[in-house]
């Protein structure tokens, strides 16, 4: 096949491209420029958009022996990912921009452009596996549980999965680094990225404050009693305990947690740990990577964070929303996060959490 290798400048995408070449594909390396004002040098772990990363990607492509180009996706990234990130926080929800990037950029803008240009698909360095089944291609967890990225890929629909190749899902990260070393790739020991690429400092709250201002508002208990003030409701997350700056102690001295963020009144509601408990969730805009789910309840697992636990649940569709009822309560679940349903290691689908109870 003729495929585009999305090369970030990191070790994973470099090895993925090399493996795709070895598998007999005709591969062309593409680095996505996601910022119109790229930083010249990375500080610490890499961000997606530094000039140095694009040089690393180019060098990897040269060593692998494939053509290399840079695609400017800065506008698409800003509209589809960065603006969404801000508007979600503004609405009191907690988004996952990596998921959005996969959905809107890597497996949409890039895949669509690649197909229009006569390519068959896109290869990336994500840790996930696909299998060919009677029901079509399905998406599965990677063998390395610490690196598994099926969660952030669960936003892909069947067509997108069909256009994707994930060569790293069967290998542990430590072995990918060894393989990169053996292939002579200089990025073999390059640090992993941990933070959101466009927030290289890792300080999400500070980044949001810089762009959205910091309007002071009340922190209240569940009865509406004002306990303190905050600097912008959107910089808090559900379940947060630290950094509330409250001076009024609780009667029994137990800590308080953020229970709710009300963007319209710019209010943060806090309460006791047990009030964070959630036993069911509903998600909107469901996407199914494989066979669609109906109204009939099914048993499986739900995961609500990129590296969170897989929680036993019963799931079904109700009124165009995906519902998961948990066997055991979960503490602290923000709307805006993705709920991803698994059947064993197979990704069933995902939805954006809009309601919890």
């Amino acid at each position, binding site marked *: 096949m003729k495929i585009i290798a999305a090369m970030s400048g990191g070790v994973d995408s470099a090895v993925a491209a090399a493996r795709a070449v070895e598998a007999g594909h005709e591969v*062309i390396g593409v*680095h996505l*420029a996601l910022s*119109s004002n*790229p930083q010249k040098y990375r500080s610490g772990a890499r961000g997606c958009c530094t*000039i140095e990363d*694009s040089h690393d990607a*180019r060098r990897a492509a040269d060593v692998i022996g494939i*053509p290399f*180009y*840079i*695609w*400017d996706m*800065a506008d*698409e990234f800003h509209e589809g990912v960065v603006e969404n990130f801000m508007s979600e926080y503004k609405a009191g929800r907690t988004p996952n921009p990596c998921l959005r990037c996969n959905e809107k950029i890597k497996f949409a*803008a890039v895949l*669509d*452009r690649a*197909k*229009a*240009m*006569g390519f068959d698909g896109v290869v990336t360095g994500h840790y996930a596996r696909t299998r060919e089944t009677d029901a079509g291609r399905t998406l599965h967890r990677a063998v390395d549980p610490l690196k598994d990225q099926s969660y952030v890929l669960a936003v892909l629909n069947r067509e997108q999965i069909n256009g994707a190749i994930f060569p790293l899902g069967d290998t542990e990260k430590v072995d990918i680094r060894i393989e990169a070393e053996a292939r002579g790739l200089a990025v073999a020991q390059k640090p992993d990225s941990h933070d959101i690429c466009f927030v290289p400092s890792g300080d999400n709250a500070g980044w949001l404050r810089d762009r959205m201002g910091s309007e002071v508002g009340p922190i209240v208990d569940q009865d509406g009693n004002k306990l303190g003030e905050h600097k912008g409701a959107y910089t808090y997350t559900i379940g947060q305990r630290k950094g509330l700056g409250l001076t009024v102690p609780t009667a029994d001295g137990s800590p308080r947690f953020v229970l709710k963020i009300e963007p319209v009144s710019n209010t943060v509601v806090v309460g006791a740990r047990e009030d964070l408990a959630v036993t069911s969730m509903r998600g909107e805009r469901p996407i199914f990577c494989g066979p669609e789910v109906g109204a009939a309840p099914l048993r499986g697992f739900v995961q609500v964070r990129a590296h969170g636990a897989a929680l036993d649940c019963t799931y079904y569709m109700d009124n165009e929303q995906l519902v998961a009822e948990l066997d055991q309560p979960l503490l602290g679940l923000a709307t805006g996060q993705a709920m991803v349903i698994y059947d064993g290691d197979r990704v069933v689908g995902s939805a954006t959490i809009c309601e919890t109870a």
Partner: protein
Amino acid sequence: MSVYLDHAATTPMFDVAIEAMNSSLRKLGNPSSLHTEGRSTRKDVEDAREKVAKAVGCLASEVIFTGSGTEADNAAIKGLFWHTDKKVILVSSIEHHAVLDPAHWLAEHEGAELIQIPVNTDGVIDLEFLKKIIAERGSEIALISVMHSNNETGVIQPIAEIVKAAGDIPVHCDAVQSFTKVPISFKELGLFAMTISGHKVGGPLGIGALILRRAVEIPALLHGGGQERDIRSGTLNAPSIVALAAAVEANLYDAQKVAALRDSFEAGVMAARPDAVINGKNSERLPGISNITFPGTQSDSLLLLMDSEKVSCSTGAACTAGVHRPSHVLMAMGLSDVVSQSSLRFSFGTTNTKADVDFALSVLPTVIERGLAANAVGKK
């Protein structure tokens, strides 16, 4: 087969230049040394300087070898600015970044006032604008810099008329693209300064020259051993200088042949894509450059597709990270941001053949179709 249509970026080295360079590389001697080896290398350099001077139409002492055309442009713009108390720098809006960026830098850091001369839709500078500025502010102008021909469109600029209008104001001309392609004489044009580069004329990379009128002593960018009239210190790069001279002396550029190839390519493109637009077509152009807009496409997609089909061409400008940017040259000619990003530059050289043109034309229709499709999904 693979077809190289990017001679404006760099040219293949002529065999005579490679041979001259090889024999010079094997030779020992710093041209500034006083002993036998030094004198021998010095002779090679001075022979080369005379050959270059002959081709440029200047005195040998007016040739100052530099490490690149960019260095020569910087030396000229900064040197001529620092040479006087006058603060206005007048450059065309379509200059190469090697001229534009030092001019901007002087404006930001050294108190210069930068005035850009607009061009018309055919890519030729507005002489009336230039004359008006000279009439109004002539006594304040430190220098004027206009390229001999534009590197993206190949459009030739009216240098003789600019020099005439300038009177006593020093005029620098970046002749990197024009040198050896069209007749140029430094002396006849009456220039103060001019830039040439080795690798655009069948010579090696890493060698250029600032042609600077005799007795004009500008401040240096590089200080040191005092080589090159104290304007460009640094041990003379004898092998590259010798190779540049060999390439120039051989005079292998066949302008008629190159122009015929370019014309037949353009005719083929227009037959295949009647909506295509050849930028600068109504102007006098270099024989080898063809800049074509393919409406509804993005040039970075087209370049990738052409490259996949083994045809090498260029999108014009890219930023440091390699991201394609709209061309300031095409935008100065009145094209929109989007249209300038739908344009490719094909540049032909003496080694190209009719078969190259036919091959490029054979892959073009599919490339354009796919480029249109790729751009259409981008707008979804």
